[in-house]
């Protein structure tokens, strides 16, 4: 039903020996410049059936920085984000062309271990979606499926992730209570803890604060700042202030195209494209 394979058409066939499939080993970055780039997108096209949602996007996302994706609703932000961990594979009739490289490895190359890719590319969704299990089990889940065994080891990793997500002090006395008993903001931080439990290199966040109140949003934003010291973060947001507050780089999309990308300061105060200026000054969106 929902989980169906997507045939992926890779137009870039040029990467031969230098490409490392994600088959359990950490790919070695091929050049000095690639080390600065966590994600490199080339000629990305995404179709839902006949409908082209993303058109010829070329983009580089810097290592250990926060990059914000902004743009009006329906412009393809989520679609692009979901290409970075191949979540679009789950959508029937979704077709991806072009190449997406994460730390130099083409993730749409044949033989890519999608499970390993998703382990290394965590994702946080718009609506907090903890499992109907205990708080502890939610964070232990990715550890278990990636083969971590031993109660003590798991407990230690769970604590570390919850601490990183700034949730430990609030839940340490009720780790075995249902995750659904947490507030929305706590649930979202739990989802972040769950995503970072297996030490991903990249964290993809699709409007992580849109279901939260301002205080919970503040907490998540400072968490993003904190995490970006060790993890590359891409965050989709409709909130311009949020982009300004958290992002080093900002990419502005419009109708499936990447209009402009650059340092957040520049995008918001001195953009090159008039569409960007119009959007960031609130003239449409």
């Amino acid at each position, binding site marked *: *039903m*929902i*989980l169906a394979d997507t045939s992926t058409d890779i137009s870039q066939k040029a990467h031969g020996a230098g490409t490392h499939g994600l088959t359990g080993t950490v790919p070695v970055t091929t050049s000095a410049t690639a080390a600065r780039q966590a994600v490199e997108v080339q000629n990305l096209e995404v179709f839902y059936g006949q409908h082209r949602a993303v058109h010829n996007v070329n983009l580089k996302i810097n290592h250990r920085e926060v990059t914000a994706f902004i743009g009006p609703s329906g412009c393809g932000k989520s679609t692009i984000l979901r290409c970075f*961990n191949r*979540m679009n594979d*789950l959508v029937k009739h979704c077709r991806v062309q072009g190449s997406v490289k994460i730390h130099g490895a083409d993730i749409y190359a044949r033989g890519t271990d*999608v*499970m*390993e*890719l*998703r*382990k290394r590319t*965590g*994702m946080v*969704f718009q*609506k907090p*979606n*903890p*499992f*109907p*299990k*205990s708080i502890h*089990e939610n964070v232990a*889940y*990715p550890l*278990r*499926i*990636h083969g971590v065994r031993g109660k003590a080891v798991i407990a230690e990793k769970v604590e570390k992730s919850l601490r990183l997500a700034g949730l430990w002090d609030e839940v340490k006395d009720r780790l075995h*209570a*249902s995750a659904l008993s947490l507030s929305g903001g706590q649930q979202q931080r739990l*989802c972040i803890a*769950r*995503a970072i439990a*297996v030490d991903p290199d990249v964290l993809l966040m699709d409007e992580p604060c849109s279901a939260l109140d301002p205080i919970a949003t503040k907490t998540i934003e400072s968490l993003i700042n904190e995490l970006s010291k060790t993890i590359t973060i891409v965050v989709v947001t409709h909130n311009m202030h949020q982009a300004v507050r958290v992002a080093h780089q900002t990419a502005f999309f419009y109708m499936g195209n990447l209009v402009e990308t650059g340092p957040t300061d520049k995008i918001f105060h001195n953009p090159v494209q008039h569409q960007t200026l119009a959007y960031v000054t609130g003239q449409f969106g």
Partner: protein
Amino acid sequence: MPSDITPAPTNFQHHEWGPRLVSALAKILCTAAAAVALLLLFVILGYMVWKGIGGLHWSFFTNLPLEEPMGMRNCIVGTVILAAIASLIGVPIGMLCGIYLAEYSPKGWSTAVIRLTLDVLAGTPTILFGVVVYQIVVVRPQNYNGWVGHISLWAHRVQSWLGITNGYSGWAGGLALALIMVPIIARATEEMLRLVPLSHREASAGLGASKAETLWRVVLPTAKAGIITGIMLAIARVAGETAPLFFTAFGNDTMVYNPNRQMPSLTEQIYNYSQSDDPHWRAQAWTASLVLVSMVLVFSAAVRIATRKRRIRTH
């Protein structure tokens, strides 16, 4: 046109009798129907308790039909064995069918046909399952001609490989009941799996879980309570089946534990005794009904309590 024209005042006091009458009537009709249905149910249950409670002695549970005072120990054990065999075969097959339908089957006409078939089977008079098992498992046909013969031949090969004898037996009865369970459990499982929100599956997939891991660790546990309810309904249903057992388990007045032999059951004994001229035997039939209903009730309650406890502990 200027848009600042004041709207005409609305009269909220306006009465219309038509709609009010209709909703009042609908409410009365629904309530009355529910009351009649409930009343009938209680009358039936009450009548059964009234008729059956007199025969409720220890001897009913410890003695056999031909002993004095007569009892139905063998029938109670037989019903439990038959339901157990049926569950052992029917629950895994039914659940796997349901999982296939909800998670793996391609969208389209083939799945629709399977689903429709299961729905038809779930509504088929259960005597048919008895006849089919009788034809294939119980009797040896004169020859193995035609496709029915082929099925019989293979059934007999599998049977002798498993050490199951021909003729009326607990295995045959259990198999007939299992066939009744499969469509019920399959559809219940499918419905419950479909209720699990996409966000759970996405969350799991996004963490790098394979489809099987997501199914086993997230989807099935989430749907567990509903699936268990479906399984219990199916077990309760087959525990009350009579007709298919006539062709398969047949019945036995002695104590049997070996499913290779003819197997007694409460339902079958109820049927036999209720036809009797002897009022004593008819009273036994009422007591057997009371015991059967109580067994199903206690079993359902026990499963519910057991699964609820586990939920509190892990969540």
